[in-house]
């Protein structure tokens, strides 16, 4: 600075040099990689923790003394919950961009398909499959959406809760995608019964195992059990089984080029949700202090929810014989689902042989 000391007039970075004038990064947390990512800056430490910076501790509690956020809301334990980062690095802007792109894509597919008269050319037997079973399945997706909406209240860090929140947003969107899709093709297909899906969801024996699986996840009181059962158990054994192993494989042969496009969006969502989930549970299984205990808990959860899901999957089997052109076999699809579960479990680091065999 010059000796004459003009007071600084500008409020812009670099207008003066003084202690701290170059401190232009959030410096209160350790980035996971070499450099902090934008996602980390938007997310880390927004939910405080008495073990970090929360000097005065939580200042309101529930009647029984449980504080605003509580590690005991899951059986799993971590020596440092704050290490977790969502693999998809989602913050608001990326979330809206992605969701908006998906709904735009789906809207186009449906509009163009309808404009070319595609729904009217769907095979008759297939139409009934869409009406009854895709119509039933949308409720399963909604159930996962509401249970993750519940779960996002309980996590011990902002990173965990936001990953569960975006998971919920994806599931709820997809449940609505299916609802609107069916509502729109119904306009073009005479006699299409939009109420049939819910009736099948509530009453058809084919769907009762799935509904029981979903209600068990919705009713779980451990938020990480909900997150685990959703993405590690239900999604591969039932979700992907039905979406990829049935709809996406069968549809084309029934003259339906639209449904696979709709359903593929959910597969893309799941890849992200799964990556986030695997990252969290593998961190917990690898925890120096609590890893072994955590692994045991995951095995227990996998047994509970796995048994329900296997039973549910077997109940779905008759659906594979309902389309007129049978291009996929339940047995193959279910084998693939089991392989998928084995791969996920191996990555997290727990054993699924007791549930689905080696």
């Amino acid at each position: 600075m010059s000796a004459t000391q003009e007071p600084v007039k500008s409020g812009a970075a670099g207008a003066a040099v003084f202690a701290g004038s170059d401190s232009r990064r959030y410096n209160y947390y350790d980035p996971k990689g070499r450099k902090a990512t934008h996602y980390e800056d938007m997310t880390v430490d927004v939910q405080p923790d008495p073990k970090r910076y929360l000097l005065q501790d939580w200042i309101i509690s529930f009647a029984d003394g449980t504080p605003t956020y509580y590690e005991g809301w899951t059986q799993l334990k971590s020596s440092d919950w704050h290490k977790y980062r969502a693999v998809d690095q989602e913050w608001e802007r990326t979330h809206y961009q992605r969701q908006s792109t998906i709904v735009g894509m789906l809207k186009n597919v449906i509009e163009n398909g309808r404009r070319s008269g595609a729904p009217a050319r769907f095979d008759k037997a297939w139409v009934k499959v869409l009406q009854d079973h895709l119509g039933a399945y949308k409720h399963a997706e909604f159930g996962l959406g509401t249970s993750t909406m519940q779960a996002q209240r309980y996590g011990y860090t902002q990173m965990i809760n936001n990953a569960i929140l975006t998971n919920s947003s994806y599931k709820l969107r997809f449940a609505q995608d299916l609802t609107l899709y069916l509502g729109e093709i119904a306009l073009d297909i005479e006699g299409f019964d939009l109420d049939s899906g819910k009736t099948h969801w509530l009453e058809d024996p084919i769907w009762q195992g799935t509904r029981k699986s979903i209600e068990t996840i919705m009713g779980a009181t451990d938020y990480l059990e909900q997150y685990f059962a959703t993405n590690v158990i239900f999604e591969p054994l039932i979700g992907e089984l039905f979406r990829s192993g049935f709809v996406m494989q069968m549809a084309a042969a029934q003259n339906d080029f639209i449904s696979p496009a709709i359903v593929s969006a959910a597969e893309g969502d799941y890849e992200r949700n799964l990556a986030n989930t695997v990252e969290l549970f593998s961190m917990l299984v690898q925890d120096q202090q609590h890893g072994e205990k955590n692994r045991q808990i995951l095995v227990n959860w996998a047994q509970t929810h796995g048994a329900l899901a296997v039973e549910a999957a077997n109940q779905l089997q008759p659906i594979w014989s309902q389309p007129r052109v049978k291009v996929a076999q339940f047995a193959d699809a279910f084998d693939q689902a089991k392989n998928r579960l084995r791969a996920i479990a191996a990555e997290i680091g727990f054993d699924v042989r007791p549930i689905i065999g080696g």
Partner: protein
Amino acid sequence: MPDGLTLNKIVAQRGISIGEATRRVADLGWTPSYVQEAMTFPTDYKIKKSPRDPMKQVLRSYFPMQEEKDNRVYGALDAALRGDMFRNVEPRWVEWMKLFLAIIPFPEISAARSMAMVGRLAPGEELRTGFAMQMVDEFRHSTIQMNLKKWYMENYIDPAGFDITEAAFGRCYATTIGRQFAEGFVTGDAITSANVYLTVVAETAFTNTLFVAMPSEAARNGDYALPTVFLSVQSDESRHIGNGHSLLMSLINDPDNHQLLERDLKYAFWQNHAIVDAAVGTIVEYGTTNRDKNKESYAELWHRWIYEDYYRTYMLPLEKYGIKIHHDDVGAAWDRMVKKNYVHLTAQFFSVGWPVNFWRIEAQTEKDFEWFEHKYPGWYAEFGDYWKWYAKLSTPGEKAILFNGDVGYSYPHRCWSCMVPCLIREDFCCDEVDGQIYTYCSEICRWTHKTAFAAEYEGRPTPAMGRFSGRREWETCYDGWDVADAIKDLGFVRSDGETLMPQPHLIFDDKKMWKLEHLRGDKLGSPLQAFRKLTPEAREAAVAEYRKGFKINPIH
């Protein structure tokens, strides 16, 4: 193209109506029969299954609409940089954003979390869908605000204070107030917190002051970024207000809920007033350099938004359901704003405490005095000398105002309920709860702690109600500490390890900036701990003395 066909005719295609779409979407839910959803977040209210649908929107239109809003925000931030906004921005203003933006992302995300609580209680899936959208909205608000703060840090002349933001949020005595706000959304009785405190009061009444008054003042100080972000945030609020009103309507017809609703409206209104008006009032009135006498003062804005819009058109109509509205509380809050100098006393307190802040506060000057006197007659007699003292004592080497006996300021007690200090001396009170003595800024704050946040209310068991907990008096944490050690422990020291992050001026020059050594030697103390040590008689005398207040000494 065949004759008679237009592009419009080709493109136009029958779709499902929005009414039909929302009805179908609402039909996604069902009543579980194999396993019941656990009522994990309890409430003492009874909720009737009488849904009213507040909104007709599906996610298919929601996401693109929100993405478009985002595009406008981020476009405006880029434009602000191209237009060299920071060259002309008022540092007095941006400094206060270090405090404000440290606080606000946590209340926002807490609102998202609270949607889990009301989502489970929602009578009907249409309302649950509304809560789901609000959840994603609040995720938007929290992270878009973190982004704005980072942007200030990268572009404003003095990034110190922005750089430690979430750490500062956990530690600062002023951000405690914001934590009380946020925890109030998510802890305790689910309806009390997530419906009444958050939506029926905070969002419906006070977001106007937060997200509209603040942006207007920002613009007057050359900050075009804050308005862009916060008006975009505010544009989501009408949806939230609708959600909250629907839920309120589903419980208000049951007379069994009235007692609790009256309790919660009273608590929520008073505490929102105490917290939001302290913080936002101070920032809007003292963080600005604009002294246009034609603009509305914070008190005038309050009258328009809280008194006219909220009290008269939202709260009063609730009386027709048989709810007793506490008119006198609204009057008492108004009196605190205009007769009892609530905002001015808060600004005085924040500035006295500058050494333990993490942002700069410069002195108010003659130009400011004139405006204050114009808008708040009598202001000068009360606060003129104080701010002159503040200016005089802003040079390193002077005895800091917090410890300077010449000034005549007397450090206040803290209110156990709202966490704002007990600044209106004549309203100070104390009481015993579960065998321990506590201090309060006002009778209603005393009632809030002792009567509202308890296991029973007027003889009725309230097992779901929350409790106040933690080290609520900030000063307890540093009782007996040398202030320099406390500042180090807080982390409010710049990267050279000596210069303070807070400064009582806006001079960006090392030679004029305070360092730890300038403060060492004075001790912080806890008024509450000292108060508790008094005998009952001495305590009574101390209360009487406190209520008399203090007088700032004339400055020569």
